[in-house]
């Protein structure tokens, strides 16, 4: 499968080698403003991406192209568990969602897709709590749209990344960490895609997978752990075409 959009975290392409290689495949580099942690390469021209809100940890961009549904992308590289408590991560997620919801309201559009290195697992507080990134693992449940918690309405996201936990299809996560504490899981799914339920109906659940090789490059070491990068990329397809044709599938691929 050929990707249309490639999103990278902590990528340093100072010598332009990657852009040069991608240019041959008709990719453009979307300019960066304030969030230098996240690079976006796309087969769609940069004019279709509008930067809306940024911190150094996230970039909220609108993708507006006449052939496709207008989408709000929230691209993240949130704080590491090594330097943050659960509360820190919860509150950072809450700040992020404040900005996302402000943009949704301003644009009158809830076609929102969040992608990147959340540095949290799907079950962590920041990914499941009302007021933060309130995600459900079940699209049918998320289609309820929102719920009230203590009198306040909070919208749902659908998080298909729950399906990446465990070893039914290897590897068992995107990041491996041998933690010295009593409670450990070793394999984590820190790299995720989550969607508002409205746009999630266009998401191809079967397409979501962790990449272990790209072309002839193996991303795992001899023990089956991430090599090259400490994270493994995820890849998925979503049909954003306004008309139901076979030509309008935008596939997004993330490396974090």
């Amino acid at each position, binding site marked *: 499968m050929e990707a249309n959009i490639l999103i990278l975290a902590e990528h340093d392409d100072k010598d332009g080698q990657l852009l040069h290689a991608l240019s041959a495949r008709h990719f453009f580099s979307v300019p960066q*403003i*304030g969030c230098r942690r996240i690079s976006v390469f796309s087969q769609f021209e940069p004019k279709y991406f*509008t930067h809306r809100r940024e911190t*150094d940890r996230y970039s909220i961009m*609108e993708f507006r192209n006449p052939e496709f549904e207008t989408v709000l992308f929230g691209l993240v590289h949130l704080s590491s568990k090594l330097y943050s408590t659960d509360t820190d991560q919860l*509150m950072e997620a809450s700040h992020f969602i404040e900005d996302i919801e402000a943009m949704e309201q301003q644009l009158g559009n809830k076609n929102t897709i969040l992608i990147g290195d959340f540095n949290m697992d799907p079950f962590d507080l920041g990914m499941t709590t009302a*007021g933060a990134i309130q995600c459900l693992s079940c699209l049918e449940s998320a289609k309820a749209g929102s719920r009230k918690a203590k009198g306040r309405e909070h919208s749902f996201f659908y998080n298909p990344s729950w399906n990446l936990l465990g070893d039914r299809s290897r590897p068992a996560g995107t990041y491996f960490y041998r933690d010295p504490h009593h409670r450990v899981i070793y394999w984590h799914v820190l790299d995720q895609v989550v969607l508002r339920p409205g746009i999630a109906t266009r998401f191809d659940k079967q397409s979501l997978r962790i990449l272990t090789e790209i072309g002839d490059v193996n991303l795992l070491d001899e023990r089956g752990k991430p090599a090259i990068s400490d994270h493994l990329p995820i890849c998925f397809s979503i049909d954003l075409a306004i008309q139901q044709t076979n030509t309008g599938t935008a596939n997004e691929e993330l490396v974090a």
Partner: protein
Amino acid sequence: MKNLWPEQFEESTTDSLNTMLEEQAKLLITITKGIVSAEVIELGEMSKLHEASGSPDFAYRFNLVGKFINDYKFQVMIFWHDITFYPAGVKFDGQLAKELQIDQTKNRASVSNALEAEVLVTRVLGSERVRSVVGSILRLSK
């Protein structure tokens, strides 16, 4: 009962971080010929609770704004203080904290008076990080 209050109160003449940054925001519009501005926005209650130890009376975020690129906003820093303005706590953008050599595990610093605040604001506004973001907004606004 007799009046226990002082005979009169004097309005504080100390500049808060908020006042300083709002004034600098106006100057930025002039310098960039209206292309880049800045804003100081009050944070919600949850954010106040999180960003400071204890619960500060006031907490704000300082954003750079690109009027001609759909009101693009970039968060430079968050700051908070009590009713007396100082000490004030500041949490910086990660790259800015690195450039200013501020504790990078928390990206935080504090200032204890208006003079220290002015020194800090001077460093922030003159930083490569802020120059770079303003430069990118100028370029993309053409």
